[in-house]
């Protein structure tokens, strides 16, 4: 139904002709068609206003993330540079002992790849699965380039015995197909063994599941703490007279507007062993000069700093819901004999739930993806999954692994985002 105030609809209301039973506009067109046309014109106009931004976001944000995610299941570092051996793997089922044809394919590919200077890429790809093999590829490549004679098996084993390792051949078979789910397997601490079945990786290499659990657990904990700290503040701000609450609101908004790095830096200064808080505790005699607390570069540092940073995101939605709660409900409950605790628990608190849901979801979503603060104050026990993604991007250069971890994290965040949209509605997201 068109808006009654719409100018096009206004024309339609002046419909005159009723000759063939259909309502017509002043210029004789059937009313229904005129209305549909004017509505679709309005729709197109609205869409054209949004189009430039939508295109911009799709190109600079959605497509890049899509491209990045593609790397999580597509890596042709091996298959593109070792075509003959990849062909042999495709023709022979798993479990086939490498015959002379395979060894010959390996030697040819190594030679060609060393000539084309892509042997490092190949080695890097296998190195993800069998650590320490990158140098095997590069050094063998150097020697093969000078010439290699059949029988290739003996010749290659002569260069390095490691070429006979079944684990290496298994890894090469896995890498011979550019499309692979192995990075996702690795992201949940699983791998394919020589027989192709999925097994857990060795205990000392199991890091990712633990990191995901830690990220979710710490985010949950931080959400809980922000709720405990944010609820009284939001309640106070919502019940004080406007003038006073506006003044106190500045104390909430100032941290919100202050640079993230500034806030993280101040916590580093405060929590250090030679920092302000430890100094005060020593001065008070709570701890001895030798018993200074380690509050930073560990999980405690991450929790404290992130709670501080995310607290306004809990307070603001709670506050805007509490503002709308009519105080006479609680008074009515009291007049009917409820104690103040019962009145709070049965009457007031349930009405704050929409704000609580909005705040908790927002804090949790933001906490799950946090990178800067854990990187600076988290030490090793306070690192989150984001830090692992960054490490694979910048240090180990295992971009496919980074992409697989990012895909899992993104999936979780988008799920929560969807829940947020269903429960709260993105329109109700408020800033300050």
């Amino acid at each position, binding site marked *: 139904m068109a808006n009654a105030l719409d100018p096009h609809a206004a024309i339609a209301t002046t419909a005159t002709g009723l000759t063939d039973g259909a309502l017509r506009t002043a210029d004789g067109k059937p009313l229904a068609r005129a209305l549909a046309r004017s509505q679709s014109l*309005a*729709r197109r*106009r*609205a869409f054209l*206003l*949004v189009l430039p*931004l*939508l295109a911009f*976001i*799709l190109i*600079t*944000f959605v*497509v*890049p993330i*899509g*491209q*990045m995610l593609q790397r999580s299941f597509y890596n042709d570092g091996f298959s593109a540079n070792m075509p003959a051996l990849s062909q042999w793997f495709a023709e022979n089922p798993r479990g086939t002992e490498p015959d002379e044809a395979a060894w010959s394919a390996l030697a040819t590919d190594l030679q060609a790849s060393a000539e084309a200077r892509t042997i490092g890429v190949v080695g890097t790809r296998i190195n993800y699965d069998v650590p320490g093999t990158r140098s095997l590829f590069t050094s063998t490549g150097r020697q093969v380039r000078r010439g290699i004679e059949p029988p290739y098996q003996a010749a290659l084993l002569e260069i390095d015995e490691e070429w006979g390792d079944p684990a290496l051949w298994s890894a090469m078979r896995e890498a011979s197909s550019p499309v692979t789910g192995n990075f996702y397997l690795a992201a949940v601490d699983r791998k394919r063994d020589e027989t192709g079945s999925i097994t857990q990786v060795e205990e000392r290499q199991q890091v990712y599941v633990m990191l995901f659990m830690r990220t979710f657990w710490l985010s949950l904990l931080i959400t809980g703490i922000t709720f405990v700290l944010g609820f009284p*503040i939001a309640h*106070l701000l919502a019940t004080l007279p406007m003038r006073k609450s506006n003044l*106190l609101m*500045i*104390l909430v*908004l*100032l*941290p919100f*507007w*202050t*640079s*993230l*790095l*500034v806030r993280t*830096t*101040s916590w*580093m*200064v*405060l929590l*250090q062993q*030679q*920092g*302000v808080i430890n*100094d005060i505790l020593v001065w008070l005699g709570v701890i001895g000069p030798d018993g200074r607390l380690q509050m930073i570069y560990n999980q405690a540092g991450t929790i404290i700093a992130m709670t*501080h940073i995310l*607290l306004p995101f809990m307070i603001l939605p709670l506050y805007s819901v509490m*503002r709308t709660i009519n105080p006479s409900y609680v008074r009515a409950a009291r007049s009917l004999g409820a104690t103040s605790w019962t009145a709070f628990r049965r009457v007031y608190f349930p009405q704050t739930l929409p704000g609580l849901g909005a705040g908790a979801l927002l804090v949790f*979503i933001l906490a799950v*993806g946090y990178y*800067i603060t854990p990187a*600076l104050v988290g030490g090793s026990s306070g690192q989150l999954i984001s830090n692992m*993604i*960054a490490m694979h*991007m910048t240090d180990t250069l295992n971009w496919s692994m*980074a992409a697989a971890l*990012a895909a899992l994290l*993104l999936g979780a*965040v*988008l799920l929560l985002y969807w829940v947020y949209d269903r429960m709260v509605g*993105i*329109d109700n*997201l408020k*800033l300050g």
Partner: protein
Amino acid sequence: MAVPTYATPLERIWHYAYLVICGLIFFFLIAPIVVIIPLSFNAEPYFTFTDRMLSFDPEGYSTRWYESLLTFGMQNPDATGWGFWVDAWNNANWVKAAKNSIIIGVFSTLVATVLGTLAALGLSRPEMPFRRAIMAILISPMIVPLIITATGMFFFYSNPCEMLGIFGLPTDCGRLAGTYVGVILAHATLGIPFVIITVTATLVGFDQSLNRAAASLGANPRTTFFRVTMPLILPGVISGALFAFVTSFDEVVAVLFIAGPEQQTIPRQMWNGIREQISPAILAVATLLVIFSIALLTTVELLRRRSERIRGVTPR
């Protein structure tokens, strides 16, 4: 809020305890930001109050860290007069970083504000198709973890035309990584959700009949927009722009991944400083940034009140 007259003694005690608890939480919120201000004037390279500072001895305070901000990276910090300032303007690392932050911040804010305001106008029309889905996409840069966005951008900006390969077009058209344009576009993407949120919030209270009144009085759509719509939503647009600017001004992850050595910004420089050789000079920068955010917060609050006044929304 006062204690009701019918409150029991226990409730009175609880009420005051509650006020104390709130005070402590406010202290937790604000103390970390306030404490760095005096510490940035420390005469010693420590991150805590020295005895001389606590006894308010003027010897314990100095502006040496602020001076070091200016001189760090200068070719001849001992020069005097005009030459000193020219040198500082051209070579001092923090001055360069500030210039970069402002250039990148201003241009990314321009892109984000123009595109974001247009889109918000469209999104606020009742006829807008797929409103909810499009809104969700446009807000997502704020929700998706920054590290994921930055990782995606790292690949995209090193070869922005890679995806054209699908259409059989040439896939090589230079790099955006390591250029100002790249960082500006990345920051515009991150700032857009803030513009959308603030401008659509302003438009909720916008009376569409004003536009029709203008049209009925003979104004064309352009005149209507600039003379009627724009002045009314301007406070919202400006606060959205300020949010976008702050987002860019405070952003470090995308800069880490796609900026080159020429595009070092203040947060990037701080990141280096915190990770490598943390010195109280960082606290001096932090203090300057806190003053900057106080100024911004004041502007936004004034704008919000003005917007509520001209839209006739009475403060609750």
